[in-house]
């Protein structure tokens, strides 16, 4: 692992110790965030899976009646019946803050008109088409809900991935790096301390020796 190059001073050590404390605190916070995100994500994704399965099954039924309708009337007539008069649905989008991830919330409203949501004359179309349109209308809220859930799941997945990377970076790179930096400064400082002590002892010895020498000369 790449060591950080630092001046072995007490000041640097204090600085590193401060950073280490911050990194530890951030690590703990991010880890909590990751856990909570994961919890929410799993709930959402489970709901997402169930909803998708049911929507897909029901959509298949719609497709079936649609195929029947297409077979029973000409393609042109089918298109005509569905295209006119066109209803524009309005989708309202707001956003919700989920663990600091902005996820969209959809609300779809369809202007009500006519018999059971069918906006075409019944004279030239088959009953199968009615079936298809009615069941598709019934499916709408769930389709929109599915879109919302799936989007939320995707965005949470991204956030979890990001958070996990940050947690790992702190845990396995930043924190060990600070620790080793602090350790190396401490060792260097201790070494200096010992060197100093030895030097003082040596100087004291020399001073004593000189004094003894001087005393002997005086006696002689």
């Amino acid at each position, binding site marked *: 692992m790449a060591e950080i190059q630092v001046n072995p001073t007490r000041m640097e050590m204090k600085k590193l110790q401060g950073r280490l404390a911050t990194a530890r605190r951030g690590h703990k916070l991010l880890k909590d965030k990751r856990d909570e995100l994961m919890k929410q994500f799993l709930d959402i994704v489970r709901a997402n899976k169930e909803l998708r399965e049911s929507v897909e099954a029901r959509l298949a039924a719609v497709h079936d009646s*649609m195929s029947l309708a297409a077979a029973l009337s000409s393609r042109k007539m089918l298109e005509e019946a*569905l295209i006119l008069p*066109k209803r524009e649905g309005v989708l309202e989008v707001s956003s919700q803050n989920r663990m600091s991830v902005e996820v*969209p919330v*959809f609300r779809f409203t369809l202007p009500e008109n006519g018999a059971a949501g069918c906006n075409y004359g019944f004279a030239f179309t088959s009953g199968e088409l009615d079936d298809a349109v009615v069941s598709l209308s019934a499916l709408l809220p769930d389709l929109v809900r599915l879109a919302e859930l799936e989007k939320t799941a995707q965005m949470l997945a991204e956030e979890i991935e990001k958070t996990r990377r940050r947690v790992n970076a702190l845990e396995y790179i930043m924190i060990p790096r600070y620790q080793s930096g602090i350790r190396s400064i401490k060792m260097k400082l201790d070494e200096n301390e010992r060197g100093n002590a030895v030097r003082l002892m040596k100087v004291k010895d020399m001073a004593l020796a000189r004094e003894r020498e001087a005393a002997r000369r005086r006696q002689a």
Partner: protein
Amino acid sequence: MEAYKIGVIGDTESVIGFLAVGFSVFTVTSAEEAARELARRAKENYAILFLTENFAKDIPDAIAVYKDLPLPAVITIPGRGGSLGYGLANIKRSVERAVGADILFKE
């Protein structure tokens, strides 16, 4: 609050029914065309774009662009040929992305 629209992209047979329920329908005949349509509609005020699986499976890159954006939500739906399991596979992928392993679908 701004009003958004819902679009459906797919082959004619699969998506025509959505005309009746107030979605905007864009019929395409190939995956490339679907990708182009997707890019064009994403710039407009479509909040949800449904895309049929038979095209979606060939253009994962074009869809992935919108994965991390709040809008639009690009959602795959089974086309007339029945479900290809692509939508569920997508959920599985996002689980793998988040958790690192598939813990939801293992049997």
